[in-house]
């Protein structure tokens, strides 16, 4: 029983990480039709900026309020990076899918190479509060606090994105744009501002995933973003491209499946099962769990 609770909660921790990356990816694709392969770079920038800030930024540190400042700096760096990518590289290429893919794949590779050149290819220990190294006993299972932190962060981000989509003018524009971007323009709305905004939201969530994921794993490495991005894409497709809630459901399904199968089966079998789940969803429900509706 302890093992099931532990696997469930660590699976949800993994799901939280996937969701943080996938939510922005899904909104960007749903609204702007951009398959952003550079999304993992936002995660890497967030992680490294947090790591750098904890050691160098005045007021920031590895513990207490200093850690909050470091994470805020990392999130701000990831958000800025996402906005710059949208404004400088993606904006001239809307409706040019092949060029978008080439640019974002190239940027992703170049970004990883730049991180490696600057801080080396090896994983580095990540500065983190002492309590995140400890465990909390829940119904007899000793659950890592880093995983619980991820779950809490993902729930808060989900609630914040849903509130934003439901209650703000720009949220309304994004929900409408996911359905029919052209018609939003035909109502006199400059939808490009919403594109920049969803990139910013996606960049912030991915950077938060980078910072808190590094807390969970205890290290930061240049390849972190790329490996998580693959599963985030799977989550987006299973959830429905454009749906934040669909991404949340799909992330939970993928995280739990991976964790349980890897534990009860062979290590690595969980990843294969996730791909099998993707294939089944594509065959039976190609539009994904929630279809194309931002908050369905």
């Amino acid at each position: 029983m302890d093992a099931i609770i532990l696997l469930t909660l660590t699976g949800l921790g993994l799901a939280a990480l996937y969701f943080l990356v996938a939510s922005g990816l899904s909104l960007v694709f749903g609204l702007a039709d951009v398959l952003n392969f550079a999304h993992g770079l936002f995660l890497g920038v967030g992680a490294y900026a947090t790591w750098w800030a904890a050691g160098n930024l005045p007021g920031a540190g590895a513990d207490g309020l200093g850690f909050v400042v470091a994470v805020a700096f990392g999130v701000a760096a990831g958000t800025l990076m996402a906005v710059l990518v949208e404004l400088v590289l993606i904006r001239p290429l809307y409706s040019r899918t092949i060029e978008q893919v080439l640019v974002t794949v190239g940027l992703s590779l170049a970004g990883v190479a730049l991180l490696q050149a600057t801080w080396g290819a090896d994983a580095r220990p990540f500065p983190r509060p002492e309590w995140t190294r400890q465990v909390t006993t829940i119904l007899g299972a000793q659950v890592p606090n880093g995983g619980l932190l991820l779950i809490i962060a993902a729930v808060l981000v989900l609630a914040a994105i849903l509130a934003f989509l439901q209650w703000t003018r720009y949220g309304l524009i994004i929900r409408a744009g996911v359905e029919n971007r052209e018609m939003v323009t035909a109502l006199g709305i400059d939808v490009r501002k919403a594109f920049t905004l969803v990139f910013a939201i996606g960049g912030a969530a991915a950077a938060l995933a980078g910072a808190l994921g590094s807390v969970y794993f205890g290290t930061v490495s240049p390849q972190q973003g790329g490996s998580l991005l693959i599963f985030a894409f799977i989550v987006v497709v299973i959830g429905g491209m454009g749906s934040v809630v669909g991404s949340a459901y799909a992330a939970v399904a993928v995280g739990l499946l991976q964790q349980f199968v890897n534990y009860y089966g062979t290590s690595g079998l969980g990843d294969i099962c996730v791909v099998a789940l993707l294939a089944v969803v594509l065959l039976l429900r190609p539009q994904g769990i929630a279809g194309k509706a931002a908050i369905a």
Partner: protein
Amino acid sequence: MSQPVLTVDDLSVRIAGLHILQGVSFTVAPTGVTVLLGRNGVGKTTTLRAVVGLTPRNGEVDGTVRMGEQSLLDRPTHRLVRGGLGYVPEDRCVFAGLTVAENLRLAERRGSTPAYDRVFALFPELDRRSRQRAGSLSGGQQQMLAIGRVLLNDNRLLLVDEPTKGLAPKVVTEVAEVLERVAESVPVLLVEQNLAVVRRLARDAVVLAAGKVAWAGDAQELLSETALTRSLLGVGSAEAHDATPAAARKDGH
């Protein structure tokens, strides 16, 4: 004669290698309804979409389109719409996942007071159904919402693309009545296949054939000449009295 509200001059549109419009020229009078007619596939919708800047990215547009003195082709769609060019697309294009109220709120423009009174006076049904998802409305109600969204703001010209397509006869009449009232205050460029509606609403007509203007003039004169309507539109004027074309009978209210 008063200045036209819209002047289309030598408009050509190529999309994916197809030369859809081949030098179309016409004007829209500053009052009343000007109807754009023609058989299927001659470029009526393409014309409206080119005017409002919605030609696909793989399309090429040449020529001149002016609203008053203002050139339109070099401006993005959202600026044209904010400048008073209202557009009601073919197939309504309401946001199915949003409520009626949200669809209307989306059309509000910064700096101007939305005319909800005007919209709800024309379409009281929209007020009653404000919390209902637009996707669950009937075809007629969706059309009312699509027109209502545009009427929320003051416009200099309305482009309305096949508003009665697929609607039941009773709803076709309702939509025609609304457009008749709307046209009293703002000029309308209308694409319409239902000749009974055209007969009721249109003052001027422009007929397209094979991407060119085949005829332009008084709409009632066109409809009164059976041979002319048959040659240009493939339908006799007598059939124009039938307000219930086959297409309309397929879909209910």
